[in-house]
């Protein structure tokens, strides 16, 4: 099987071709602001130099810090509304309460409380109030906010209220990107809500990045399937990645741990990636890697995926 791997870093875009377990060649280009140019350059570079027939490439995998860096640098984030179902509970700590101020400002601190949510045994707290949510949806539309993150008390146990709310909000705010926290996170309201908000504010950018990747693959004549790497060391399909960009967070440390382990044959060791934007130091040892990041600033969150990192990524990021 011939695979091509591409890493879009803050500074460099690198492509590598592998034939089964053998690394054929790698090629380094400069990351472009439009993403496509840099990826095309890296792709065409590695294909030409290796002499591999682009049509023979079975699979392309893209790993990128582009989305993480957008958060770190507070740029290209879509203004987002956080809608939380749980009234009359949860008011002591509104959405984004512990976020750095500049990150709140970057997406706009648009927070809404509504009735709904469930008890720990799945019982409904108060039912979802359609009128209330329609008003919320209309207000969000009026403010021209196009990304909505919905979270609900105990939604990992019962996500019904989130789904209902999602439908009502989609109708009241047509065209909005809606993220349901129960699709991403697990128990821990604030962290799951944060993951949902992070996801919602990145969906525009994720479409840009994935589209750029598609164009670059087409331009290089590569027709195989393509995937993005997520933060548990596995791959996700492009359509899935467009819906859940937040799962690419911290995929770069997992990628370089896997790569370093493969190339060096070392099972227990320290891996240091000195990048253009951040430096990551990881301890690699099965079955879980363990990471520290310096140079990032974010909000606490857990990730839904079976995370290779045994700490929530956000608490690492300067937290």
């Amino acid at each position, binding site marked *: 099987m011939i695979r091509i791997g591409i890493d879009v870093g803050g500074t460099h875009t690198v492509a590598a071709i592998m034939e089964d377990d053998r690394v054929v060649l790698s090629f380094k280009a400069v990351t472009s602001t439009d993403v496509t140019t840099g990826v095309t350059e890296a792709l065409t570079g590695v294909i030409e130099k290796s002499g591999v027939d682009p049509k023979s490439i079975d699979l392309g995998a893209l790993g990128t810090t582009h989305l993480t860096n957008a958060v770190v640098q507070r740029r290209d984030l879509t203004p987002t509304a956080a809608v939380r179902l749980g009234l*009359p509970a949860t*008011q*002591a700590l509104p959405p984004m*309460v512990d976020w750095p101020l500049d990150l709140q400002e970057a997406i706009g601190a648009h927070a809404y409380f509504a009735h709904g949510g469930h008890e720990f045994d799945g019982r409904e*707290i108060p039912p979802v109030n359609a009128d209330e949510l329609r008003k919320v949806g209309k207000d969000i539309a009026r403010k021209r906010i196009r990304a909505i993150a919905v979270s609900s*008390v105990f939604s990992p146990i019962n996500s019904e209220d989130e789904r209902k709310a999602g439908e009502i909000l989609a109708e009241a705010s047509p065209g909005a990107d809606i993220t349901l926290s129960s699709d991403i996170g697990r128990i*821990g*309201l*604030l962290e799951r809500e944060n993951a949902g908000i992070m996801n919602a504010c990145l969906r525009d950018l994720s479409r840009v990045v994935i589209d750029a990747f598609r164009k670059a693959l087409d331009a290089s004549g590569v027709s195989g399937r393509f995937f993005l790497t997520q933060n548990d060391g596995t791959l996700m399909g492009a359509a899935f990645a467009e819906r859940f960009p937040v799962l690419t967070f911290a995929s770069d440390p997992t990628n370089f741990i896997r790569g370093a382990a493969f190339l060096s044959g070392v099972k227990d060791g320290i891996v240091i990636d000195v990048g253009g934007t951040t430096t990551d130091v990881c301890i690699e040892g099965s079955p879980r890697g363990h990471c520290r990041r310096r140079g990032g600033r974010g909000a606490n969150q857990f990730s839904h995926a079976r995370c290779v990192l*045994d700490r929530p990524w956000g608490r690492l990021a300067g937290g």
Partner: protein
Amino acid sequence: MRKITRQDLIDLAVGAAFLGTGGGGDPYIGRLMVEAAMEQGGDVVLLDPTEVPDDALVIPTAMMGAPTVLVEKIPSGEEAVASLRRLEDRLGRKAFATMPIECGGINSTIPLVVGAMTGLPVVDADGMGRAFPELQMETFSVLGVSGSPMVVTNEYGDSAMIDARDEKFMEWIARGVTIRMGGAAYIAEYSMSGADVKRTAVPNTISLGIRIGRCLREAKAGHKNPIEALLLMLPETLYSFGKVIWRGKVIDVRRETKMGWALGYAKIEGFDGWKGVMEIQIQNENLIARVDGKVRAIVPDLICIMEAETAEPITTEYLRYGQRVVVVSVAVPPIMRTPEALEVFGPKGFRIDEPYTPIEQIV
């Protein structure tokens, strides 16, 4: 008397998690709540027990319920104050101060929220000296202060006032009410005089929590071993002895919310020269640590699971397969080790069929 600062709150969140011995709820949420209340303009004033007049009325406040519920159903913020006000009405007197019933976990912060919202000072003392799962497990009760009347209130303002024949039955009824309220509720109980505070409370436990957090933080900032620094500091307090009892990797965690508790166990495979598997039994808090069936530490002494590199205390709900941890055990103050106290919150109080051996005597 001192005013609590933001740095104190950050340190307290860590120290209270340590004293929480795995339970007590995530103080992170409590810390955010105090900060939010302080931001609204409320100050939090901590009083030494000696600063409370003998005839003053002190009404302790707290949260009760499963910590696993608290991380989802965050409070509305009004509940604990509502319980205090209802108890004042019942007693026909206004409170001079509030106080924690539990210095471990989130209950180190709930009275601070009440203080910030009402302007009442908070007495620097509690009745558990750590975290415990049941309301009768208080030095207050052991030494004759009645828990009733008590008030339980939820996010809707529904409340129950409980008068029970003893604190064990008060716990039984209040727990039932709490479960019906969704697994978490806010209480006012053990109202007492300043004289009783001085006689029955474990003193200076909030400032101890702050001190523990500060010690760990400063050690890490100075690139010193934080756990060693902590074990050196503790003998200066009423918690006169502490030691590392295990190092290892978490290989199994079992946890279920049952009857209002987070029940379960954690298994830790030893490394770094520690051979075997330590099993820690949990009922909200870490109760007993055994290796190959042999007891290595037992309640009421503290059993704390700490992250191996950062020394961050790990609460029960955040225990995960693969975590590399250090387990520390600490001696509790003498007021908690009397025969009467051990009946209530020693192994017998948890239906554990093992004798209590003080940690400093376990080889």
